[in-house]
């Protein structure tokens, strides 16, 4: 989450400030990609790219706080992912292998991040084993940081049903973790 600086960052990004938009993107894209990796594993990167293109085109018209921003972002991503699933089309994207090493972001604690990455990968793999509706709700609540009401609007359900679904998803995760003896 960007937090208190979100409104300023958003205004600067709408004014054409690359740095401000970069901050918004760095904050939201990892969550977006993780969500899409659960929803459409084969086309997560492509859908993420399309999502950001759509967001950029509507950026000037967007108004709202950070919660609305994330809701808009993930709603857009969800629609793009559904389109991808329906039409089964391959969208062009630049493979990660083609990215030059100089373009990779440098971090202060690479080792810690590597460990975190492993844990994240395993967590994503576990969530992917859930029933699709439970997996989506869990990802939208945990990764996207959306409230129950907003998740209910996105998936076309009621807040109560979303809570129940999320609860069942966590129970399922706990069962998978205990039954398989998985440690992160």
């Amino acid at each position, binding site marked *: 989450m960007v937090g208190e600086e979100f409104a300023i960052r958003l*205004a600067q990004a*709408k*004014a*054409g*400030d*690359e*740095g401000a938009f*970069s901050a918004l*993107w*760095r904050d939201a*894209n*990892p969550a977006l990609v*993780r969500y899409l990796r659960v*929803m459409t594993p084969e086309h997560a*990167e492509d859908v*993420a*790219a399309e999502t*950001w*293109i759509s967001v*950029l*085109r*509507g*950026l*000037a*018209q967007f108004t709202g706080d950070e919660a609305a921003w994330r809701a808009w972002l993930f709603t857009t991503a969800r629609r793009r*992912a*559904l389109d991808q*699933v329906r039409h089964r089309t391959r969208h062009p994207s*630049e493979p990660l292998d083609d*990215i030059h090493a100089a373009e*990779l*972001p440098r971090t202060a604690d690479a080792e810690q*991040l590597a460990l*975190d*990455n492993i*844990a*994240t990968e*395993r*967590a994503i793999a*576990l*969530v*992917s*084993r859930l029933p699709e*509706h439970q997996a*989506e709700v*869990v990802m939208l609540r*945990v*990764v996207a940081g959306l409230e129950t009401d907003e998740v209910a609007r996105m998936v*076309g359900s009621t807040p109560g049903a979303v*809570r129940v679904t999320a*609860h069942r998803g*966590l*129970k399922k*995760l*706990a*069962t998978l*973790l*205990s039954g398989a003896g998985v*440690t*992160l």
Partner: protein
Amino acid sequence: MGDSFPRGLPGAGSQGDPALDAALTEEVADLLLAGMPRRAALSPDLRPLRETVDALRAGPSWSELAAESRVLAAFRDICGPSLDDTIVDGPAGKMADTLRLEMLREPEGPRRSRARHRARPGGRPPARPDGLPRPAMRRPRVVGTVAALALLAVVGIFAYAGSLPGPIQDAAHVAFGAPPVKTTAASPPTEEANGSARASASPMTGARAIRPSTATGPRPSANAAPAGPKQLCLAYLANPWRPGATSWDKSDFEKLAKASPGGPAWVLWYCSKYVNIRHQADGLPLFFPLGFPGGSWAWTPDHGLVTGPGSTGNDPGPGSTAGTGPLPGPAGGPGPARVAGQSGTSGHSEDTPGTSR
């Protein structure tokens, strides 16, 4: 969920662990989903679950940030200011402060967002990393060019189909050779009409229609406003003289004859400047009255003018009112040929235009 994500998930259902069920209440679940504080007490049975949920929220990996440069490129392309928004300052060409404008309220509906510079107290906009002006939008120009070409194509199609209004069709005819304004067809003459024509009060003497044109057009001078040279030529060419034909107007021809630098014998040459006579002739010899006795001319598109009976083939050029002899055809056309034609006998043959007999 109406829109589903089809995935091959294993069909394992809940195992119904009582310990887990007891520990994972709805309140605990809400805390886990919202981000439970580290110091919050939690059942040891739920520790793996908590770590899994925390891992989902972990910091970004390098792969999740690898696309930043491409996204920023898209941002510059879609949301960056246009070249018009920048001002080059002085001879050094340094990019000056951009003009601060309040962002206008955009109308509803899909649009291509173009960010505007917003007034910012005491601040300058962050400069582009490379300091170069942004390219101006070219898409509207491309769209306009394509639209103009499409419109021209449509007009051209209608012009060649002869479906445009009269003045526009004439303009298209002059501009790029589209068919001229169509005229209604006329019935071919009969032998009796041909035979009686010589005795009729007509400007032609000793001439016969070889293969009359089937087209007759409206007489421009009859019950109509005075027509220009093109209209007169069109009417003239559409109504080649036939003995007894009433559609041809002598007075109109006289107008053309006066307008023509060479007089009646040069009316065809004169009209060739306004009308594509090849189209009018339809590839077959036609007779055109010249308004003077002893001469007749037939226009053969492929072979230029053909002298008829009574002509010497040595007609002078424009400026002369004596009219027998070859006249220059359209540019590039072959010279005239002599054709035998005689009053009272069959005139020009249709088999080989311009063939001497």
